């Protein structure tokens, strides 16, 4: 079971995409795992033949539990003890994080009777359990026929964590850690987007709607290029030291319809053509909303971009996602009075903000970074 997030302790294997005897190749999707955030497709990182599935679908296991045995292509025969495990496609475990614990599986309670539809519980108890996020399977019922009643849920609710979704808890943990550990500083600047808007209009004029470039692709690429110039914004802060990343893995925040958000990684947008950046963006946003991100896409981001302009806001004051050290926020692209060559013009503009980790960089470097973002956006044809 790979670790698919710093706070992940266990995951539920939703389905196997392979069976014993199947040949697999590096990069194949072999399974789907349900984490606190989404259903994640699990890739395999070697070539070989599936020897045995060790964890049945539906089971919850701690991070680090072998899920399957794969015989490497060159290995002639299967012998116990000589079998390679599926390597976890994992972000390095958080250094501060606890070692994987045995999963705290809810033990079936002896008192509760269970029907085909799950634990026997009254309608009012089910409703209350849903509202409070209480797991009925973990409660003993004291009502008629040992059914779970409202009072049983209330008692369990008093001992249970507050009624929040798993995703809410994950976000709460990451953001609390961020505000606790990271001394943020914030910079903001307005950027003239006249050249960018004109560039997009020209580029999109002859394209069908589904292939049009959106401004987000330009913003992402400009941020990625700026990371090369100011490497203090791109990397991870861990063990009291900053490790800059040679590659830009840019996380793009996607709000989910059911609430919460996820920021899947776009690999190296600084080295991709704009059309490719746009394709990657469409792809991950669609799959993020469908709950079908791959394990490799939700780990290892080196900087995050969030764009809340479509919700109408002017500016974003973002919270850095640890262990990253910077987050760039964009507001609404709107026509604004703009002084250019001594004249007041109406120009499309956007407010860009930078939230950065003061342990790693100072305001001056942040300003240089934002200036670079603005500069790249003035020459969209060069992106």
């Amino acid at each position, binding site marked *: 079971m790979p670790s698919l997030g710093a706070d992940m302790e266990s995951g539920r294997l939703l389905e196997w995409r392979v069976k014993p005897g199947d040949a697999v190749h590096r990069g194949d999707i072999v399974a789907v795992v349900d984490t606190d955030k989404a259903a994640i497709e699990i890739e395999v990182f070697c070539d070989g033949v599936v020897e045995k599935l060790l964890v049945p679908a539906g089971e919850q296991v701690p991070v680090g539990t072998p899920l399957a045995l794969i015989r490497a292509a060159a290995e002639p025969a299967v012998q116990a003890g000589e079998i390679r495990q599926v390597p976890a496609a994992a972000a390095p475990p958080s250094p501060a994080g606890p070692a994987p614990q045995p999963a705290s599986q809810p033990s079936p309670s002896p008192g509760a009777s269970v029907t085909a539809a799950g634990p026997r519980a009254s309608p*009012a108890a089910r409703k209350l359990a849903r509202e409070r996020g209480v797991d009925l399977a973990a409660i003993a019922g*004291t*009502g*008629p026929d040992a*059914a779970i*009643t*409202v*009072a049983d849920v209330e008692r369990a609710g008093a001992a249970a964590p507050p009624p929040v979704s798993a995703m809410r808890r994950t976000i709460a943990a990451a953001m609390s850690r961020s505000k606790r550990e990271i001394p943020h500083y914030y910079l903001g600047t307005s950027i003239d987007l006249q050249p960018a808007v004109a560039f997009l209009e020209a580029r999109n004029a002859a394209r069908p709607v589904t292939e049009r470039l959106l401004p987000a692709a330009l913003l992402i690429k400009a941020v990625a290029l700026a990371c090369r110039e100011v490497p203090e914004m791109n990397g991870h802060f861990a063990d009291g030291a900053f490790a800059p990343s040679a590659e830009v893995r840019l996380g793009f925040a996607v709000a989910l319809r059911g609430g919460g958000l996820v920021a899947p990684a776009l690999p190296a947008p600084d080295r991709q053509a704009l059309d490719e950046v746009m394709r990657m963006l469409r792809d991950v946003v669609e799959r993020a909303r469908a709950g079908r991100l791959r394990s490799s896409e939700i780990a290892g981001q080196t900087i995050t971009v969030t764009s809340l302009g479509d919700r109408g806001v002017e500016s974003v004051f973002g919270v850095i996602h640890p262990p990253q050290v910077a987050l760039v926020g964009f507001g609404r692209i709107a026509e604004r009075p703009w002084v250019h060559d001594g004249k007041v013009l109406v120009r499309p503009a956007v407010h860009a903000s930078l939230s950065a980790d003061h342990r790693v960089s100072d305001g001056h470097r942040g300003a240089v970074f934002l200036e670079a973002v603005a500069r790249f956006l003035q020459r969209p044809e060069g992106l």
Partner: protein
Amino acid sequence: MTHTTPAAAKTSYREAVRLALCEAMRADPRVFLMGEDVGRYGGCYAVSKGMLDEFGPERVRDTPLSESAFVGAGIGAALGGMRPVVEIMTVNFSLLALDQIVNNAATLLHMSGGQCNVPLVIRMATGAGRQLAAQHSHSLECWYAHVPGLRVMAPATVADARGMLGTALRQPDPVVIFEHVMLYAVEEDLPASAGAVDIDHAAVRRKGRDVSLITYGGSLPKVMAAAATLAAEGIEAEVLDLRTLRPLDDEAIVATVRRTRRAVVVDEGWRSVGLAAEVSARIVEQAFFDLDAPIRRVCSAEVPIPYARHLEQAALPQAETIAAAARELVAPHG
């Protein structure tokens, strides 16, 4: 006859019905009473005792033993502008008048395109408990509560016996009032000022938070006794008296279930296809997600009501069987 009463006198249910009849007849010359033995005999249950003397044979009319004929006559009188009160001795004999009640009284307003309303009040005794055997012990309120065009009431208290008739007589449409045979002798304090009462709403007869006991008519005293027993055990039962069986007060039914999350429906009628089933269905339809336990019905055993006293008592809902049903629903810890 009790013409004058002190501020709050002990009054029997039968006296309360008589007070209501007399008051209505004194107030409105269109009101008259007819039925079997209501005049010279004073009524099978002595409700109209003495009324012949005061109002004379024109207004307190003894009828032949022909329920279909005298209910039909009542309908005709109502159509003609009178305000008849027809007493059918018991619900058991009302089956002979079903055609008049269901086919005529309940439908004429509709069949006449709204021209002819039938302001008729039919009173009848109902229920078991007097060792009158199977043919004279029916509880068939649900038959009438099934029929659009009728309003069906079941006064369960002396105050309602006193007050419902006057309000019923003001209705433009036929009203059927069920008086349980075991209630006639019940005595309660009745204020001298007692008069017409609301007939649109159910009444909470006892407040409670643990379980709702929903009932009407002759079962109310048994349910109140069950609630007292339960209270001594620490279970606070709320008692809802439906009062009007058609139309049912859905709002009050749902409100009490929302408060307690558990319901026992008590009905002296048979369980199958009865009023308790109707009330249960409405709870499930409108308050399913408020229920914390299955609904329980306490009804009569599905047998012809026996004559032998111990068998008759065993066939009917009793305070102890009602309390037992409530106990089942209230979890020991909760």
